Every structure is written in structure tokens, then in C-alpha cells.
């Protein structure tokens, strides 16, 4: 059964209160779960926040993570977005060494990847790449031979395609809090 090592994107709606992020992070560290990436920002209504966590584990582990998250009092909803069809997005910012000899080749890669140049000085180009995780990673691999001085990525945010949050509650109904 298990899909060991597969990345799962878990979207968590929480009350926007002091310490809620610590509760989530503590849960992951205390129970030995891994956090691959984590983003937090206020939801449309700023009394709530949306936390998007990318984690790894087989089906049983992911189910247990979702249940444990639900158990936290400030957690309002938990959805495993990996089960359904979701749009995932992240941003990568890179500082890359570029010189006169390889500038043409570099600009070519940037154009093909639809990356944007944000800043330039005599040695370095600062580039923004956005898209799914794979696209960001591939771009970084492509420009690696030029020499990367710095690479910062935002971590993933995700949303369901239909906009229907609840269609992704594939966990047994009774394990998921219903609004």
C-alpha cells in the first residue's frame, strides 16, 4: 500500500492566534514527522491563517499527521491536497554568476524558462522563477553550471482546482472536522 517518501501537501486552516505555528511545528518534531517546506499567511479573513506544509510519509503516516493536526484546538480544517487535483506554486529567487562569455547562453535559458531578471550588477544576475516545485528545481539545475551564489525558495502554496475544499477530504469522513 504505502507510498513511502512521496511528498504530500497538507493545507491547514487555523485560528490566527499567538503560538499556533509553534503548536504545529512541535507536533511534527515531537512525533518525528519531517517538514519539507512550510508557508504561513493570513487567510482572506485575517482572523484565520493558512498553513501549507509539504511532508513525507506513507499513507498511514499522512493519515495520522492529518488526525493529529485536527486534534489541535486552533486548527479548523485539514486537507491533504495531494490526494486530489491541486494547483501548486512556489517562487525561487537566485543570484547567479554571469560573465561576458556565457551571458548569451544564460539569457537563453532565462527566456525559455520564463524566468524574470529582477536585478543585475557587474557579476551577478538576480532571477525570479515561479511555477511548480519541479520547474523551480529544474531551473536551478540548468543554471547551476554558471555558479549559483544564493538560492531562496518560498516553499509551496497550493489550492484545489475546483475551489471546493471539501472535495479533497478523502480521509474517512469521521476523521475530518466538518464545518
Amino acid at each position, binding site marked *: 500500500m504505502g507510498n513511502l517518501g512521496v511528498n504530500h501537501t497538507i493545507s491547514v486552516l487555523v*485560528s490566527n492566534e499567538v503560538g499556533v505555528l*509553534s503548536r504545529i511545528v512541535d*507536533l511534527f518534531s515531537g512525533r518525528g514527522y519531517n517538514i519539507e517546506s512550510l508557508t504561513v499567511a493570513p487567510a482572506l479573513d485575517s482572523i484565520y491563517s493558512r498553513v501549507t506544509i509539504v511532508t513525507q510519509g506513507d499513507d498511514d503516516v499522512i*493519515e495520522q499527521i492529518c*488526525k493529529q493536526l485536527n486534534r*489541535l484546538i486552533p486548527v479548523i480544517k485539514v486537507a491533504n491536497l495531494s490526494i486530489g487535483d491541486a494547483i501548486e506554486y512556489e517562487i525561487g529567487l537566485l543570484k547567479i554568476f554571469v560573465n561576458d562569455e556565457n551571458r548569451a547562453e544564460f539569457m537563453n535559458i532565462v527566456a525559455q524558462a520564463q524566468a524574470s531578471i529582477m536585478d543585475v550588477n557587474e557579476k551577478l544576475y538576480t532571477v525570479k522563477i515561479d511555477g511548480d516545485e519541479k520547474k523551480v528545481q529544474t531551473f536551478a539545475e540548468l543554471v547551476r553550471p554558471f555558479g549559483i551564489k544564493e538560492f531562496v525558495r518560498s516553499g509551496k502554496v497550493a489550492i484545489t482546482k475546483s475551489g471546493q475544499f471539501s472535495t479533497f477530504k478523502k480521509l474517512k469522513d469521521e*476523521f475530518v472536522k466538518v464545518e
Partner: protein
Amino acid sequence: MNKQMFSGAQILLKSLLKEGVEEIFGYPGGVVLPLYDALYMQNDIKHYLVRHEQAAVHAAEGYARVSGKAGVAIVTSGPGACNTITGLANAYYDGTPMVLITGQVNSKLIGGDAFQEADIVGITRSCCKHNYLVKDVKDLARVVKEAFYIATTGKKGPVVIDIPVDVFNAKYTFNYPKNVELVGYNPNYKGHPLQIQRALKTLFEAKRPVIISGGGVVASNSSKELTELATKLHIPVVHTLMGTGTYPDSLETSLGMMGMHGNYCANLTVSNADVIFAIGTRFSDRITGCLKRFARDAQVIHIDIDPCSISKNVKATIPIVGDIKNVLNAMLFELMKSHHKINVELKDKWFKDIEEWKKKVAIPQKMSDKLSAITVLEKIYEFTKDDEPIVSTEVGQHQMWTAQNFKFNKPRKLITSGGLGTMGFGFPAAMGAAVAKKDGYILNIAGDGSIQMNIQELMTCVDYKFKVINCIINNGYLGMVRQWQEKIYNEHYSQTKISSPDFVKLAESYGALGIRVEKEEEIIPALKKAIDFKGPCLIDFVCENFEMVYPWVLAGQPIDKVLLSRKEC
């Protein structure tokens, strides 16, 4: 509209009264001075002064376990609050409802490393169900209301309220909220009707069914429903340590405790079952043994109010999330409606097998002329059983011997540290039990190691004349650890030989009764004397050093590999 102003300390006490709290345990200190002043000025809430903050929390837990109500404790900031961690973790593990009030330094000083400051919300996050730091007196009443609601619903547990000293002093009106609004907290009480029908159908068809009754049956007060359902469905019942007393031991279909030191019969029954009906248990490793080999051929029906407990360790075939009492009542109702005739013959062979397994019990050990701990406990049980006292235990060999040799026909009679296994729990928990149940006496079965972990509470017991009879099974060792060293670590008794003070003199110095028992014929007279004494008592039973707890399933082994004596390996 009530416009009268009260201090935060008064608001807290008024809120506690609204929650029906009349008795609390605690220890004062700098930042809770305003609260202790407010306590001084009133007579509605009785405060019991302990001698160590850990004991306050254990006592609150003992109180909660006996009364079924949330236990309440108050401690000061920093060291006071840090001393409660073990008690919190213990209550969290065993699902005991509790509200702990911790003082905090002035809210303007938080984060500045003030005197006696500790980030108690941070420290306690992983050992309580929820916690609050109240920064505004306006939130205080609502927070207390929420804390009690969270502590006493769903899977029960401890909730911490951290209150800075300036909030105790700030003034505000008192309006206790009627309702709780927590968007993110809605425990599911009603089991899924289709799951309930599936469960019943599976139980009807089962040839080798067994019920495992856990601590959740105590928490949800469902012993009656459990007993009725098991009887009607004609299914034998085993219990976990935490489920002791949920199904009367006097019934023939009660197979006793299962697990690492459970009965041979109980363990074999679970191992060979085709349907396991688990009620309010989280399948801890002390119950399942080797998880991979646990009940491999069985279908598992699992009721629990906490979804996390289901399929965490043992995969449930039919999960039912809900309040046990509700679910069992729904099952009883379905059973009545269906007019299903229970086929008793279907299980004939099963019950014959069980009768055979019942014959295999631990083989008595006779090692020296010293008292056998098992004999002592048998005698204590026989002598006290008609009084049905509440029995608390510490943790170790004596705990297992108590669970094995005492028979309980009612829940909330055995108060013991199950999940966390906290030495030093039993004595303060017995004090809490004594507050919850003012008539009669409380037995605390202790080891010579455990009793020394919270021995200071003798003074508390003397002050309040708590009738706690501490029966110390004194074998000169940290017996359970020594037992493992003997079997698994080549008799390397590393740091397990432990000396004790003269318990008789110690008791006397506190103003308690101390008795030493070295011979079998002294046991009953000592108990008589202790029961007649109007206060706490220490009975020092000087026992054989090398007695072992059997039955014993070694850690990591499947639970049907039961050792019954030293000779087996």
C-alpha cells in the same frame, strides 16, 4: 448588566465556582500572591497545601479519577510551574480532566528573563491538551470556561492557564459566558450508524470474539453499558490496566488483565480471536507486544472518541469515532430492534479453549523465609475487599502485583499511572482520592523506591488527616528494573539496589503511624491498626528481594509468548 468590578484573582475564583470547583490543590509563590490573597478572603473553595508542586498535580489527578470531575491545581511561576510537568504529562497520557493554573511574571516583563520566569506555555505545549497565556483580564472568564470545556470533553486531559501577576490585579466586571465558541474543537460524540450496524453484524458472526475494555470506558462512565452488551452478545472481556474494574472481575466471562503482565488466558484469548472489539484503548505497546504479530487474523472493531487512537498502532477494520456510552447504547438499541438470536453454540469451542487457558497461571515462587510480596497483597486484598477501598499504586512490580491480585468490580477504584508510568504518582494521587471520597480509607500500594519520590506528602496527609494507608512492598531494589536486569542484562544489578530510611521512625517523625511487618501473621493486625488510626500510615512490609512478576511477556515479543516462571526462557 453587572457593573461591579472584580480583580482578576476574584474573577478566576468566581469562574472556578461556576464550574463547580470546591476543592483545589496548590502551593503559593511570588506571582500568585494576589490569588492567594483572594483565596484567603473567601470560604467557598477549600485549598489543600501540598509540599511539592508535582504532588499538587498528581493529587488533582487522583481527585479527578475518583470523582470524574476536573481536578484543579494552582502553582506559581518558574520553578513552581516547571515542577508540574510530570503530573501534566501523566494526566495527558491517561486522559484525566484537569485544569492547572500557573502564575506568570508581569506581562510587561515576559521575555525579559525576569526572576522566576519560565515560558510555561512553550514548555507544556506537548504535555497538555491545550494551554493559554491570559494577557488581558477581559479574556479571563472566557478562557476558564473554555479550559474546563476542553479538559472534560472529547478525550479528556489537562489544560494549563498561565496568568501573569498584573492580570490577577487588573479590575474588570464578571460575566461568566454561558457557551463556548471554539470553531476548531468539535468532538464527535455520535458513532456512525452504518459503522455501528457493521460492527454488530461482525460480532454476530464471530466465532472467537473478545472485547478489550480500556480506560476510555472509565472516562465515559460506560461500565454498565459494556457489561450489558458483553452479556447479551455472549462475548468474553479482557481489560487493560487502565480499564481495570470496567467489567466486573466477579463475572465468569471476565478474563482479567491482558498485556505484558496480563493473564495467560487473557493474552491467549486476544491472540486467537477472530474479532477483537476494542473499546477506549489506544493499543499501547504494553498491550500489543510485538505489533506485527498482534492478532494477525483478527478483524478489529475499535471505538474511541479520539480519532488519533484509531489505526495508530493496530489497523481498525471497523473504526467508530464517538463517545463510548453513546455508541454502546446505540448498539444495544440496534440489538433490541433486530431481534437477532445470539447463537451461543457458535462459540462453544471458543469458550472451551478459554477454560483450558484459564488453568495456566503463574507458578508460585518460594525463595526464602522472607515475606512474599504476592502473599502480602493477597492478604491485604482479602482483608479489605468488603470495604471496597480506592487503591492507588506507584509504578513497578508492586503495581503489577496489585493489578493481578486485587479483583475490582467497579471502575474508578484502581488509580494508577498507566501511560507515563510515573513513580511517585500513587501517594499524592491517594491524597486527591481522599479529598474526593471523604469516608473510608485509601490504600496506596507502593514500592520502597517509588514511595521515596514523594514521601514529603506525609506531612500534607498528617495536616489534613487523610486516611491514606501506604503499604510499602519493601524488597530493597527497584524491583521491576532489577527483574529486567536479572533476565536480560545478565544479573548486572546496575544502580537498582536501593536503601531506605527506617520507615517506622520516618512516619513517627511526621506524626503518622508507622508499622513494620516481617512475618505473615503480622499482616492482618497491622492493617487493623492502620485502618483504626485517624490519619496516614506507612506499613513497611519487609519482603523477599528477588521475587519476580509473572506472567511476563518480554518486551518486543508477541503477547502469547507468556513466561509463567523463572524456569522458562
